[in-house]
């Protein structure tokens, strides 16, 4: 492969996805309207809890910070969720028979997976991000935000989400039915990742589960930067997230290799 071939593939995949998935104004709903409604629903779901001075809730989430807590939760969750969605949509590529075409070309397959994941993120997140930014400005106590850390953390989170999406895409190369990804990841990611409930209060077994999702670390990082609460735990999360993401890239490569071999063995002459 020529040097720069990887980027060429990524760019080509971005272009392909863009032409494929931009369908008029309907994107507005999935990107802005639904997440906003989901956020409102969970905001009101927390209303029956006793808050204020001396309550259990205020020990975990300081009083008045519930909207910001949920917003940051939803922002990060949405980032990872768009990556899951890209893997979920991967099944269309198989049904359409375009995976074979891509695999027959000499282009980089890793580039193909990362291009997909990256596009999903670009496509999915900008509207929700701008919505969140606006709300942050209204909700957040600006003086407590550590802007440098926040910016850095958001970039790391974006990268982690792309890696996560590419891994899931590689996993869905094994099966035509990838909607199971949706069912497996939507709810557990929200619950154990700490979108609505901080993992700090979980019992040990649930903490173990939450350690498996990169969402958890990203949320610790983002919230730490928002409240300027940067301690050793924060640095540890950063290290784990970066090392974990690098490990996941390796996993993606391996899964891709296995999936191709699997397809060659089990598939028919058109490969799949």
């Amino acid at each position, binding site marked *: 492969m020529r040097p720069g071939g990887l980027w060429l593939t990524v760019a080509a995949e971005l272009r392909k996805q863009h032409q494929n998935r931009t369908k008029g104004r309907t994107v507005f709903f999935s990107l802005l309207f639904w997440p906003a409604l989901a956020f409102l629903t969970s905001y009101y779901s927390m209303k029956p809890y006793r808050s204020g001075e001396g309550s259990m809730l205020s020990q975990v989430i300081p009083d008045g910070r519930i909207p910001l807590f949920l917003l940051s939760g939803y922002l990060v969750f949405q980032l990872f969720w768009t990556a899951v969605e890209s893997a979920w949509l991967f099944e269309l590529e198989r049904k359409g028979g375009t995976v074979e075409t891509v695999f027959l070309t000499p282009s980089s397959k890793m580039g193909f997976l990362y291009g997909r994941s990256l596009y999903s993120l670009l496509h999915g997140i900008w509207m929700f991000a701008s919505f969140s930014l606006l709300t942050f400005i209204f909700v957040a106590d600006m003086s407590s935000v550590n802007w440098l850390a926040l910016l850095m953390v958001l970039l790391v989170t974006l990268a982690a989400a792309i890696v996560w999406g590419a891994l899931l895409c590689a996993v869905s190369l094994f099966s035509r039915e990838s909607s199971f990804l949706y069912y497996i990841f939507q709810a557990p990611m929200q619950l154990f990742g700490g979108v609505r409930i*901080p993992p700090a209060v979980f019992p040990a077994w649930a903490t173990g589960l939450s350690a498996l999702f990169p969402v958890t670390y990203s949320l610790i990082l983002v919230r730490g930067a928002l409240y300027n609460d940067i301690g050793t735990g924060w640095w540890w999360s950063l290290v784990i997230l970066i090392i974990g993401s690098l490990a996941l890239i390796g996993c993606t490569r391996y899964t891709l290799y296995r999936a191709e071999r699997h397809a060659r063995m089990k598939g028919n002459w058109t490969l799949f």
Partner: protein
Amino acid sequence: MWQTAIATAVRNQRSNLRAYPWTFTFGHIIEGGYLVLISYFSYYYLIRGELDAQFSVFAGSSNYLAYVIIGGALSIFSTSMIMNVSRALMTEWREGTLEALLLSPSRRNGYFLGNAAQQLYRSGFELVTILLFGYLAGLRLPTPHLLSVLTSGLLFLLSCYAMALVLGSIMLYTRDTYIVQNTFFAVTTLLCGFQFPRQYLPGYLQQAAEIFPLTSALELLRSSLLTGEEVGLSDVPLVLLLSFLYIAVGLWCNRRVERGMFERF
């Protein structure tokens, strides 16, 4: 009409068992299971049982876990019912059988009823499984008044059916299921009071929820389950009236849309 209903139910059951994977059902069960888990975690670990004083006033009971678990289970159940009935004609269209259906002299009401009846065991299966999870998480009910539960349960079913008909005609008109159904469910989850008492919402949103028969049906069913309260005769006519209005509008719109269906393209 009954012949059509039975024929449709039998046909759907067969095609569901043979051609469609079970992922939808399992997905709903998983989703419901997690709704239960989220409530359980919030209640025991996050707030350790500390509730807002207003909750028991709004909910009529201080049993938070039972309140949200019933709400969550019914939310999944109504989603499943509404989604599958409203998509019936769209599925027919996608599978290429809509033309044949339109040409046949069968009654449309029977067709939808058959769809609903078939969906009932699938959604019922989901409901029972989720309630089992709920039982494990600590859902306990006082002895409910059986007749009230039955009445309000039937009203709940009727309102799901009525809303599905209207939603189905919108789907058929826009030729889209994804956007329409998800928008609809995002709105009803927020407004109808599945996860929290509606009284916490701002006034105008509370009033907006009144246009759905689901809202009052849910309130009736939950209060009869939760507190063993008898359903008063005064609550029933509103739900009935709204449901019949929705059914009439839905059937009329479906007829209109069907008429233009093959001419537009």
